[in-house]
């Protein structure tokens, strides 16, 4: 029972953050609501027994990527969004569209509920760091190396793009 209550709390936090991301006009507010979403997701990961991933989520996502976003927003200081012609139509089409999509997927999920079974914090040290480490550096070594190259290229790209033309 505790799990379900905790899950509902975190889920509500998450959805509230996401909705706030949409509602806010100023990007800084939406950025912070996104940080809230990520933090609640981290908590949900803990609920799912994925400690390492939760920690990484906080450090990498909330701590690094979102800081980057906040930085850019602060630097550019572009101010709040202003309404423009396109948004009216998008709103009219977009919202019901997303609703339909969500309901459709939700209905499918609920429909498949029996087969899916349930999930709990697994007793044994499921999300232990050293298990993930062993897996990451043995079975997934190639992807690991590839992503490291990707990151290198991304850094160079960012530097080149970000630099002021001298």
């Amino acid at each position, binding site marked *: 029972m505790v799990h379900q209550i905790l899950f509902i709390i975190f889920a509500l936090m998450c959805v509230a953050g996401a*909705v706030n991301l949409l509602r806010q006009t100023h990007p800084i507010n939406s950025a912070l609501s996104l940080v809230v979403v990520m933090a609640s997701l981290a908590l949900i990961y803990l609920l799912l027994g994925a400690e390492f991933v939760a920690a990484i989520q906080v450090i990498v996502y909330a701590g690094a990527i979102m800081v980057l976003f906040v930085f850019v927003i602060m630097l550019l200081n572009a101010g709040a969004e*202003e309404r423009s012609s396109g948004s009216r139509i998008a709103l009219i089409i977009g919202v019901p569209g997303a609703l339909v999509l969500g309901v459709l997927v939700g209905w499918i999920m609920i429909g498949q509920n029996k087969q899916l079974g349930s999930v709990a914090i697994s007793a044994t040290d499921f999300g232990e760091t050293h298990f993930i480490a062993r897996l990451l550096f043995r079975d997934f070594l190639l992807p690991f190396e590839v992503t490291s190259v990707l990151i290198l290229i991304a850094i160079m790209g960012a530097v080149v793009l970000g630099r002021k033309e001298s």
Partner: protein
Amino acid sequence: MVPLSWYLILSAVLFCLGVLGFLLKRNIITIFMSIELMLNAVNLSFVAFANYWNARGGLLPSGKAVVGLSGHVFVFFVMVVAAAEAAVGLAIIIAVFRTRETLNVDRVNLLKL
């Protein structure tokens, strides 16, 4: 014992909100953030299924044992890619802002300056 479908529904809802943000918002950075939201939704379902498969065990169709943790590793990779994407994306946004003086997506529609 939270049924798996709740997690999936939450992930679906987050994903839809991400798509909505991606469509509705006018500020480039906010659009960018809604993409991040979508990625997070995906991560959630990854972790949820990782836990589910770990609990179920059993054999993969290819005969190998089910490795629940691979879900986590995937989340790890998704994060790395998201980081890279964010870095390059924000650099581009800065470059765009420097030339166009605005972050409003509808203003940035001319291919030449």
